[in-house]
């Protein structure tokens, strides 16, 4: 039977939703025995969440103060130690997984399969290249451990189940001292999370200033949407980097995506290909965003947004 080890991502004592999507991907491999590895300073609550994910057979934990911050150099040796005997090692294709999993792959002596979007069969997978402009079908020869990151936007979170057993795994020890966590600065927001929100409203360079961007936040709040942005808007300092959507930002799949004052550069579109309905508002009728929009409106955003607000009442 194929055995799969999934490296859990978590923050502030809670499991990141991307982990449940890795489980969904892993379930695509027939007869897989799926285990989740939780590395944390205090893993218990996180492990309990992981154990309740439908399809998980076992949760393994290692508690170590060195795992308090997600440092790849500290985590990789432990993942490698626990991974011995597994046929597959999966992590989410988030900045956490992208940082950690290639370090794990190299220590295991294999290449990593990045951004898996479809499991064709137990050894065959689809993944995007060239900013999603081509999809490749890749077969991993027998005898190699499959180390992969899972493109969360291609998968749904699994449901829940009666808790699977939780065990502590053998600690590998020997955390390197050469890498130290200093701090993390997050936009403290009560708004829905960009990566999991059902609705996302994004603004681009057209907003012109951080002050003007407030109308995007305001519109988003009135429909309970998360806020996103183009790279140009982030570069110009209108919004923080964690709001960037696209090839080098977040890849998202909300039910509704509204692009306001965004031209629709290929690198931006990569991030929204899996959205349910794409709405574009742009004053240029030739903007490329209209080629992918399900609903398009040509107009000046500074006029259109107040109109939408008043139509919503």
């Amino acid at each position: 039977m194929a055995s799969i080890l999934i490296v859990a991502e978590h923050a502030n004592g809670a499991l990141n939703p991307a982990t449940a999507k890795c489980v969904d991907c892993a379930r695509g491999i027939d007869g897989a025995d799926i285990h989740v590895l939780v590395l944390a300073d205090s893993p218990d609550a996180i492990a309990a969440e992981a154990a309740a994910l439908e399809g998980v057979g076992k949760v393994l934990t290692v508690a170590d103060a060195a795992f308090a911050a997600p440092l790849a150099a500290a985590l990789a040796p432990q993942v490698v130690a626990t991974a011995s005997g597994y046929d597959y090692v999966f992590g989410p294709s988030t900045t956490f997984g992208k940082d950690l999993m290639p370090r794990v792959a190299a220590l295991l002596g294999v290449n990593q399969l990045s951004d898996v979007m479809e499991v064709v069969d137990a050894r065959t997978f689809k993944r995007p290249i060239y900013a999603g402009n081509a999809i490749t079908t890749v077969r991993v020869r027998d005898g190699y451990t499959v180390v992969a990151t899972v493109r969360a936007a291609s998968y749904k979170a699994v449901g829940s189940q009666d808790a699977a057993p939780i065990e502590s795994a053998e600690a590998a020890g020997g955390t390197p001292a050469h890498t130290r966590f200093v701090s993390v600065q997050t936009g403290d927001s009560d708004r829905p999370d960009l990566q999991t929100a059902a609705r996302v409203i994004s603004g681009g360079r057209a907003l012109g200033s951080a002050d003007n961007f407030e109308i995007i936040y305001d519109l988003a709040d009135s429909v309970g949407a998360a806020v996103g942005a183009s790279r140009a808007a982030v570069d110009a300092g209108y919004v923080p980097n964690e709001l960037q959507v696209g090839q080098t930002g977040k890849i998202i799949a909300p039910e509704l995506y509204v692009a306001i004052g965004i031209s629709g550069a290929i690198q931006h579109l990569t991030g929204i290909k899996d959205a349910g309905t794409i709405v574009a508002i742009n004053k240029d009728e030739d903007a490329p965003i209209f080629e992918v929009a399900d609903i398009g409106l040509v107009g000046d955003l500074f006029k259109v947004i107040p109109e939408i607000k008043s139509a919503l009442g």
Partner: protein
Amino acid sequence: MDKILVGLKRVVDYNVRIRVKTDGSGVETDGVKMSINPFDEIALEEALRIRERGEASEVVVFSIGPSDAQQQLRTGLAMGADRAILVEAADAVDPLSAAKVITKLIEAESPELVILGKQAIDNDNNQTGQMVAALWDRPQATFASKVELADGKATVTREVDAGLETIEVDLPAVVTTDLRLNEPRYVKLPDIMKAKKKPLDTTPIADFGVAPDDAFEVSEYAPPPQRSKGVMVEDTAALVAALKDKGLI
């Protein structure tokens, strides 16, 4: 600091519209504009700024690729790199093999800092830098948007999903670049002339004793599923009505 090593991968220019060959055997690259991977240009710019601040004495660029990658190395020299190394490989090189070659370059050059792009925009692998750090058994600071060097350490701000993370790593270390780290300089004509005299050494990849990894077999390249063209609405009222219709608001 003595030396900084920077990777410059030759890739299809980011402005080119990528087309999958009709027989599904690959992506059209004939007659297509090739450039330095954008993240690698940022890596080089950062190395040059560090040297210009007097915090490093030499910037060495390398590329693993076909002999045509000399063009990208010459551009790197024109930007200001001191010296270039081409590891000539006729076929595409997988990230693990690239990382093994880079580790050998590191052994030969003993840099204190290796700066690579966070990802090559052809295969979007985002793994070579992390693999180099693993094989070298040194720290990695990926997705950097700010790098400060002092006392044998680098303090690096990283672009992560949650926001901005700061870590401190002992040198030597590997840094991979994110887009907001800096804006690369333009190359001026006199610099291109000067770059012609700078050293560019070529070594065949076979000399590195790295066997290409053949674990992955790509059986097909396909264009992505196309989204069908939608409708244009006349005004805001029609937009709001359409969204309500679909139950989206």
